[in-house]
């Protein structure tokens, strides 16, 4: 079964940047969401295996999404892609179960390394 991946970011440009930074041979169906609430809707309706998650967003932010994923015991991997690079924030999202943290603007090499490292491709 093809992996379903969700890109969640309030910026259209940022969503496109993530999509374009994915390795060419990364085989997944890509869905998108423009804030945390939308992401939770998508997570409820689809079996998402991987989430690329922004943190600073209107309505519900990335930390809120991570908390909800944890509370609902959803089985999905989360890679945080954020401009909020404070060490304490990186620690917080890791504690909430995020697999990895990538500093914006997203870098395709780093993304590829992480996807390989965790056997996601």
């Amino acid at each position, binding site marked *: 079964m093809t992996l379903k991946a969700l890109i969640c970011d309030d*910026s259209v*440009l940022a969503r496109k940047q993530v999509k374009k930074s994915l390795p060419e041979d990364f085989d997944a169906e890509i869905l998108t969401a423009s804030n945390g609430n939308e992401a939770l809707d998508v997570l409820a309706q689809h079996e998402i295996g991987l989430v690329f998650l922004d943190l600073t967003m209107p309505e519900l932010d990335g930390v809120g999404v991570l908390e909800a994923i944890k509370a609902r015991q959803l089985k999905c991997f989360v890679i945080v892609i954020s*401009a909020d690079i404070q060490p304490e924030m990186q620690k917080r999202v890791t504690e909430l179960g995020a697999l990895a943290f990538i500093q914006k603007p997203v870098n395709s090499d780093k993304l590829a390394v992480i996807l390989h490292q965790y056997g996601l491709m």
Partner: protein
Amino acid sequence: MVILTPDQQDALQELMNVAMGGASDQLARFLNTFIHLQVPAIQVVEASSVPEQLARMYVDDDTRLVSQGFMGSAGIQGEAMLLYKMASTHQLAGILGYQQDDTSESEMLSDISSILTTTFLNSLSAQLDSSLSYSAPRLLSCQPSELKQRLKELSERWTAALQVNIHYQVTDYAFDCEMILLIPGSALETLQHQLDLILQEF
């Protein structure tokens, strides 16, 4: 007046978001605290409308204005202004261990402004493949009655203003300031062109 397309606005917002993230990280290290970030609200306005609008927003407040010029390789240049309300600054000075007198508070605002402006603009220009140099920050203290005149003097040379409202919620106190980038019309056109190049890439 140049108006950004929705795509350009979104792209600029994201570039600013990345720049804000870097600036906040530096400021958090300086303040030795954690900062809750919010999506920065940005808008492009005519420079001439800035004094009136800001004077209205800060009508009752003792305000400090820090201004710093910047100049870049790709025709980007302008003046970065940061506006602080003194009421929230006194508390911050206490927390940071600055003496609560005028000289020390001025020093603190210059330090904070330098961190915010240079980190923010360095990140922004790096994303636009340009580099910038800066003049030293100048601190202008003003009573509410003088603010409009000071802003007028600063904004007269420029066409457009990129207004970024920054709100930092630090764990146990709120710290607000307003950042205004005053730029000439030609720089705004350059910026739009660079945003279009980025948009074409994706």
